[in-house]
């Protein structure tokens, strides 16, 4: 009797267990579907990144000139440490000079580098290669362009880069670069009041001789050091294409490599004093320490 009474409840319990198992199975299937969908979404995002990156790259190299610009910029901003080490101070003729007094130029809590030049100016064309090579060791440029200096000035048509429209990001330094005129002397970038004041103050007596006041290129390194004019002989770039110059920067035995990379080492050594010798990978590198030693002895 007791067994007969238990049968309906056992059947109900079994059915309940079966239903629970089915529900669990269904839940599991749902979970696996959700998981597979999530994995799929992540994969789609990764594939989309790769496709957009590839398309962007192929678009940026869609025309011969933009492909060339990309190659030039990549080469100029990616000089290997070994090349800098081998060049040392190279064929640099001048180094960033200390600004008398106790000035400082900062932005966002970081030492700031201010460059003022113009695209027509052959000395700016010369100096830009070294400034770009040096700053690229501390951060990343975006949208650097290429241009040539004026066809009617000394060292005509010197191939160079342009800071017009470029930006720079670094955790060590801030950078503002202005090209005040294009290669045909038409107005280009306007200096904001703050940077204009720095330019007008330090690119004038007593910081520079009276006849050099307002000269470009003018580069202020954190208010501590400055460059006025080209730091190496512009003649080494004469007749060279952008790509030839950029490639030569990777050759420590070339005249261009010695001049541009040597100047970049000197600028880097000064920048290292502003960043507290950071990053060490740059500031303790043989090229930079050789440059620092050369300047301390000068």
């Amino acid at each position, binding site marked *: 009797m007791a067994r007969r009474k238990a049968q309906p409840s056992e059947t109900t319990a079994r059915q309940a267990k079966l239903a629970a198992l089915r529900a*669990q199975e269904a839940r599991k299937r749902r979970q696996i579907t*959700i998981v597979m969908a999530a994995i799929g979404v992540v994969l789609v995002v990764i594939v989309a990144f790769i496709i957009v990156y590839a398309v962007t790259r192929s678009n940026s190299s869609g025309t011969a000139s933009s492909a060339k610009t990309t190659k030039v910029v990549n080469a100029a901003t990616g000089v290997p440490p070994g090349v800098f080490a081998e060049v040392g101070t190279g064929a640099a003729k001048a180094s960033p000079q200390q600004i008398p007094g106790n000035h400082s130029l900062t932005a966002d809590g970081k030492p700031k580098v201010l460059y003022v030049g113009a695209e027509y100016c052959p000395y700016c064309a010369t100096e830009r290669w070294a400034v770009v090579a040096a700053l690229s060791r501390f951060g990343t440029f*975006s949208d650097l362009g290429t241009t040539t200096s004026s066809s009617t000035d000394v060292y005509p048509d010197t191939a160079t880069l342009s800071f017009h429209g470029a930006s720079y990001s670094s955790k060590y330094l801030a950078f503002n670069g202005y090209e005040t005129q294009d290669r045909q002397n038409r107005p280009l970038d306007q200096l904001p009041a703050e940077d204009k004041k720095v330019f007008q103050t330090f690119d004038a007596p007593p910081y520079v001789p009276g006849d050099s006041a307002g000269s470009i290129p003018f580069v202020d390194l954190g208010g501590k050091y400055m460059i006025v004019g080209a730091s190496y002989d512009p003649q080494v770039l004469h007749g060279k294409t952008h790509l030839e110059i950029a490639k030569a920067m990777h050759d420590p035995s070339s005249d261009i490599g010695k001049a541009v990379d040597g100047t970049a080492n000197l600028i880097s050594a000064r920048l290292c004093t502003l960043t507290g010798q950071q990053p060490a990978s740059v500031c303790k590198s043989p090229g930079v320490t050789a440059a620092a030693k050369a300047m301390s002895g000068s």
Partner: protein
Amino acid sequence: MDRTPPEVHVPAWAVWTSLVVCALGLLDAAYLTFEHYTESTTLACSESATINCLKVTTSSYADVFGVPFAVLGVVFFLGMGLLCLPVAWRRPGRPLRLLRVAGAVAGVLVALYLVWVELFRLDAICLYCTGVHVLSFVLFVVVALGSAAIVEESLASEREYDGST
């Protein structure tokens, strides 16, 4: 009433794969952290137009609110390593399981952000960072699939049903 906790069946592959991935990720992130605090002086990475570890690890994107991503990577893989211990996988209840899945999702989202930064902001790829990103993705897959495959059986209720209490 029997108070035996429910028995949790976890696929062995999920437990061990997740642990191995966490260990590898921890090693990779620890190396990047070491490089960060030694100013990348010994970073062994080839340099080309696209592959450039130094450009990535010394960029302004290498930190978030002053904390290096490399350090966050160490914390992430340590935390996930603890959550992926066999005892943690087999612990019944949802909170720990949800925490593990949330951690894996957070890891893969951060990895996607960093891949975006490398490709579209820096135009440079750091191989060690890519290693961490791949491991984060693998961990996400393993944790997600492993969590979905978990079977939790309530022994207590079955024993109640069997009348074996």
